């Protein structure tokens, strides 16, 4: 039996209403984020843009930028952050992927769940608190693992938390606090790979290593790119670690070790918001550049 004409029209109207209702809901969902993004993302960026080309309200062209470039602390800070980024991003990417693959390959359910929970745990601590924890761990005179440090020849905080050791130490902290979350995400992504494909590979005689190399890692490409994107963005903003560990080194880490610390110094030690904004914009440019490379090379925006 055909439905009455009226009812069909009613159905269409209903659908339209629910469409517009969905659209409204969409706005409602996005508006909260939109407002926060405008207030704490877009607006500060625009303000930094304004500040970086002006000085006490007057337009000064690129003067603020050239002052930053001429600062004797600028190049060492660039070097420090770059070194840290290289060590950190490489270590994080390789280890996270390997650990996720290993955990995924574990057939014992309880073990795999426990491991994922343990990896995730440190990340659940607030960032500053975990760095504070490390400020005790890394002081050979107080640390519960001081035996390891003394056997490596470090007997004091000043000798350990200094110079060339810093990129490694900061990587250690970043890995400890951040890797767990990524391992869980990678694990989820591995679960998404269809069993059929894995099964087919297994029937073709691929071993675990081959499956990882030819199937799992290529299929994780977007996730790895995504992780790279966020860790680079986070890594260029290195601040809390050197700021807090300076105490362990009794000030051997200079107060302007990283670029963000230098920007902080400009604003709050020299009351120079313009130079601070200029340096922030430079950082934004560099990070955006990295992001563009990863997004386009990593195929992050490609649709399957």
């Amino acid at each position, binding site marked *: 039996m055909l439905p009455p004409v009226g009812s069909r029209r009613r159905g269409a109207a209903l659908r339209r209403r629910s*469409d517009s209702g969905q*659209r409204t809901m*969409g*706005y409602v969902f*996005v508006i909260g984020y*939109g407002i926060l*993004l*405008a*207030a704490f993302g*877009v*607006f500060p960026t*625009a*303000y930094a843009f*304004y500040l970086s080309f002006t000085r*006490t*309200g007057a337009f000064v062209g690129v003067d603020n930028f050239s002052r930053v470039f001429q*600062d*004797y*602390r600028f190049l060492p800070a660039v070097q420090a952050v770059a070194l840290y980024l290289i060590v950190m991003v490489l270590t994080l990417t390789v280890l996270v992927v390997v650990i996720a693959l290993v955990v995924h390959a574990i057939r014992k359910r309880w073990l795999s769940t426990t491991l994922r929970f343990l990896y995730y745990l440190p990340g659940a601590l607030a960032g500053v608190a975990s760095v504070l924890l490390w400020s005790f761990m890394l002081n050979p*005179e*107080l640390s519960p693992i001081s035996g390891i440090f003394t056997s490596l020849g470090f007997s*004091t905080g*000043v*000798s350990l938390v*200094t*110079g060339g050791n810093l990129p490694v130490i900061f990587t250690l902290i970043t890995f400890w606090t951040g890797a767990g979350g990524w391992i869980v995400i990678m694990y989820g992504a591995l679960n998404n790979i269809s069993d059929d494909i894995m099964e087919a590979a297994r029937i073709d005689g691929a071993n675990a290593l081959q499956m990882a190399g030819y199937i799992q890692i290529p299929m994780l490409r977007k996730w790895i790119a995504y992780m790279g994107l966020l860790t680079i963005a986070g890594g260029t903003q290195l601040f809390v670690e050197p700021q807090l560990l300076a105490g362990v*080194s*009794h*000030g*051997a*880490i*200079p*107060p302007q070790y990283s670029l963000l610390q230098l920007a902080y110094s400009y*604003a*709050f*030690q*020299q*009351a120079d*918001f313009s130079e601070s904004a200029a340096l922030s914009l430079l950082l934004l440019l560099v990070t955006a550049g990295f992001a563009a490379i990863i997004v386009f090379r990593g195929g992050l925006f490609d649709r399957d």
Partner: protein
Amino acid sequence: MSPQQHRHPSHRLTRLLAATAVAATFALVASGCTSNGAGAIDSKYGFAAAKQVPGSKITVLVDTTRQPLALAFQKEHPEVPIVIDTYDGNPGGSGSLQAKIALDDQAGSGWPDVVFSSQTNDTAWAGKETNGVQPYAAALNKGLLDQSFLDGFAKGANDPMTVDGTVYGLRNDLAPTVLWYDKSLFDQFGYQIPTTWEDFQALSDQLAKDHPGYIMGSVGGGFMAVDAYYWAAAAPVFQVKGNKFTTNMSDPNSVAMTKLIDHMLANGTLTNKNVFDPAFIKNYKGKVLAMPGPAWFAGVIFQNPDSLGSAPGTVGAANPLFWKGQKEVTGDVGGGVWYASSHSTNLKAVAEVLKYVTSSDQAVKLASGLPGYKAAADAWLDQQSSGGFFVGDFKGAMTKAAASVWTGFGFATFSSETAWDTKVNPVIESGGTVASAVPAWQQELKNEAAIHGYTVTSK
């Protein structure tokens, strides 16, 4: 719904967001452009005071050590409306006060009316116009406080906060360095208390030979090395005159102090462990024969059970060390300062708070070091001497030290201490000498001075 339809609303949203951001930027830019620069100088106060609102609330910003004093004021003066706020007190030149004021300047509001800082060099920035905003610190001797009250401070106590005859801050406590000594150890070893740096060094050789493991001081941290050693030795390593900065590491006094430190580091009687480092206490509790250090070591180090926690009747303060044949001068390690805000709308209440926190009976009772206000200092010294904790002429040594701080040391907008921590201490740590690190140390000071807008000169 087609993808086309999907896109339209999101476009509209993007436009809306963009428009909001642009509008907000313009609003902000406009507000940023409004000048809140120096207004007309008020003849009553000697600076451009804000419109006074009698009875308006004032904010008092203190560290936790000074909080009981602020609370005591609140209790004794319920008629003065105050809000007490706390912060870290700016320790070790952390710049947290400067950060707060810089933000308040930028926002054009929110300045604390009265503030305590543990740094003596804040006037370098608080006493001058920043980005077109009038100096944060109010001039205190141009009408806000009477001269008779200001005259009550110890000689030179307010010098670090005085620029061209204008006093911008009141000294909470003096921090001249004296020679702290452990009388029981001196008696046990049969040594004489040294009076000059030369005797001090000679005694260190004796001590190293007779009783290895005992020490005669710490250069851990710039605040000790720079202030209690170089400053106390009248070494011109950090001098500021107006906009000119000088650091002279080859002056005879600088060279002699560098040699003395290297000598004592080598014979093991001087440590580069910071006195606040738990390792210092672990290694040297009961093993400190003598130690040049500021007046506030009294409460913070010797009477503090969490630090060296000496037994009553064992420790004393002797006159500061000096070079044989030279003027008897000493150094100074910090000492807190009280500032008033030039933006305050209730300067009458501000003046009342300032007087209370520096000169009242409670200020003496709650003081952790030698007060800057003379009468309060005398009362505190009597209190300490009669307490029986310290041996010898405690009051005499403190009084002498307070009157002999070397005036050749400068105060700049940057810390005189961080360069030692970044350039010299790591070298000592890895077994090198101070002398080998001096060129890098000096260069760092010059670089810092230049970046902070000083003209670096050699004389």
